[in-house]
């Protein structure tokens, strides 16, 4: 089965034996749980759209391992065209979900591991790359969803892993034996993990010799013994038990994140891709982070397309669409959205082959994209709220709208232009409210790394000495 449908993906989740807790309860059926179902629906779109001829050019690729048609989310980039198509695919899916569909993280993890494992083998004489290739082929053949598991809880940020008061604050090796390894710790902010088949564990930071037990990369089924997921709360998540007040009831807001605890989890050697080679942890982190930061002008570009469309629609419904300042704000939102997209396209077009043959983005431009997202999404969303008006934050509930006695007052006093129903005005208002605040904004700030992580990468790759030299030459200063 090379290409699952959305329904087949959802059905496959029912076969997993996941241990998931949310809101103080153990969740027996994640697929139908109101807190989780919207994220399942969003991820299912990455499967369903691959079967639609209108989207298959972006959604599928030809495997360089088997020659078969595969879902692009399991593909290893073979060209800059692949990198560009990834960005376009993300924008297209976001336009249809308005939220995170989670599958890019594992996509980026397999691409990062693919090239880094090759380079490790060349240098160290290990056999990790062949194992990664077999694992990728397994993912492609079964069209599996993989959570990219990088972020450790980190504890005291001033200390390296080996100096933490609690050694489990970073995932680490507990035991090595003939069969495999045993790991313990946790991974935080795990996007889509409760509806993924696999998790690909990687170190979260560059490591030194004292931290070699923390240099672990491996693949673990999300329902393996010892794996436990604690699903995170989101802003307004009580609303998931209704419809209109959610804004985007079908697909939800951001990815559905969890804390995943790894309590002495066994991993067979076939699924171990790094074990104590601490010198390579930083390379793997940087490669994964660059691929992941590449995405944000695509996915957030598509999400912002929805916010722009919603803002323009509410202006129509409010009767303000012809005001010059409204038009100007919409124009600014479009400008900012396309600025994000331009960065993602640029870092993809400037991509290059790695020694493994897989293509890698330009890391400087990829970091610039994500850094812009930490700022420009806030401005896009601020403008949307400005255009929409304060009622998006003070609206009565869906239950009040439907209430047999007071519903008529909600209908009457939340009316905009006469030609549009009050319910439609409330629906678009709720979409704006939910897409432009709370969890959605924080995800833009910290997803794929916090702003300072990008600034460190940007300055490291900025070629500053050459810029100084150019300036000195023009100023008439003698240079070597």
């Amino acid at each position, binding site marked *: 089965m090379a290409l699952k449908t959305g329904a087949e993906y959802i059905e496959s989740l029912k076969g997993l034996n996941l241990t998931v807790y949310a809101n103080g309860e153990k969740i027996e059926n994640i697929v139908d749980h109101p807190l989780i179902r919207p994220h399942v629906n969003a991820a299912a779109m990455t499967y369903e759209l691959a079967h639609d001829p209108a*989207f298959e*050019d*972006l959604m599928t690729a030809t495997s360089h391992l088997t020659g078969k048609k595969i879902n692009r989310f399991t593909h290893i980039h073979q060209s800059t065209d692949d990198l560009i198509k990834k960005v376009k695919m993300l924008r297209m899916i976001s336009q249809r979900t308005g939220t995170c569909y989670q599958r890019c993280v594992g996509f980026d993890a397999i691409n990062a591991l693919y090239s880094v494992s090759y380079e490790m083998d060349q240098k160290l004489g290990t056999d990790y790359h062949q194992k990664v290739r077999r694992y990728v082929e397994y993912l492609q053949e079964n069209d599996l969803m993989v959570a990219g598991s990088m972020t450790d809880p980190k504890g005291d940020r001033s200390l390296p892993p080996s100096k933490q008061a609690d050694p489990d604050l970073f995932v680490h090796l507990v035991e090595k034996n003939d069969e495999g390894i045993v790991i313990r710790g946790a991974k935080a902010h795990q996007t889509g993990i409760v509806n993924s088949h696999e998790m690909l564990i990687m170190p979260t930071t560059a490591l030194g010799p004292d931290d070699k037990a923390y240099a672990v990369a491996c693949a673990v089924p999300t329902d393996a013994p010892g794996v436990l997921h604690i699903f995170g709360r989101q802003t307004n998540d009580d609303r998931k038990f209704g419809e209109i007040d959610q804004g985007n009831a079908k697909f939800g807001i951001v990815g559905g994140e969890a804390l995943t605890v790894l309590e002495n989890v066994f991993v067979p050697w076939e699924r171990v891709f790094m074990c104590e080679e601490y010198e390579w942890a930083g390379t793997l982190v940087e490669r994964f982070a660059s691929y992941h930061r590449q995405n944000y002008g695509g996915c957030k570009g598509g999400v912002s397309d929805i916010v722009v469309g919603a803002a323009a629609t509410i202006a129509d419904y409010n009767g303000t669409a012809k005001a010059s300042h409204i038009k100007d704000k919409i124009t600014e939102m479009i400008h900012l959205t396309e600025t994000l997209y331009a960065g993602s396209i640029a870092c993809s077009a400037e991509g290059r082959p790695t020694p493994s043959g897989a293509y890698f983005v330009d890391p400087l431009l990829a970091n610039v994209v994500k850094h812009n997202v930490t700022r420009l999404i806030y401005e896009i969303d601020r403008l949307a709220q400005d255009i929409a008006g304060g009622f998006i934050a003070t609206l009565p509930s869906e239950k009040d709208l439907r209430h047999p006695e007071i519903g008529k007052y909600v209908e009457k006093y939340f009316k905009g232009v006469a030609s549009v129903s009050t319910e439609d005005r409330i629906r678009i208002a709720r979409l704006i409210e939910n897409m432009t605040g709370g969890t959605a904004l924080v995800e833009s700030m910290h997803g794929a790394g916090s702003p300072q992580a990008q600034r460190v990468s940007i300055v490291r790759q900025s070629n500053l000495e050459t810029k100084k030299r150019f300036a000195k030459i023009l100023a008439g200063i003698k240079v070597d």
Partner: protein
Amino acid sequence: MKLLRVGVKFCGNCNPHLDCPKLLEKLIQKAKDVHFVYWFQASFDVLLILSGCPVDCASRPDFNGPTVVVSGKMVDRVPVPENLLLDHILGAFERLKEG
């Protein structure tokens, strides 16, 4: 009368200036002497590329025959008013049939 077999390939529609699936529906309704297939389904005489915007990034399948390219509101790179798009595409098919 021999039916012209047209293989259709979409771009992926990330920036649809044009609703390409809807355009195809209209073509199917209007072009009675054309049989449309998706490019991966069967062999065809003419390849029809339906790209939603002028970038026209649809990847091209291996095919050495004639190709008609719609990219946004252009047919074979010539700007066409939206209400005349169907006629221009059908005209391109006619010319190919005539040889």
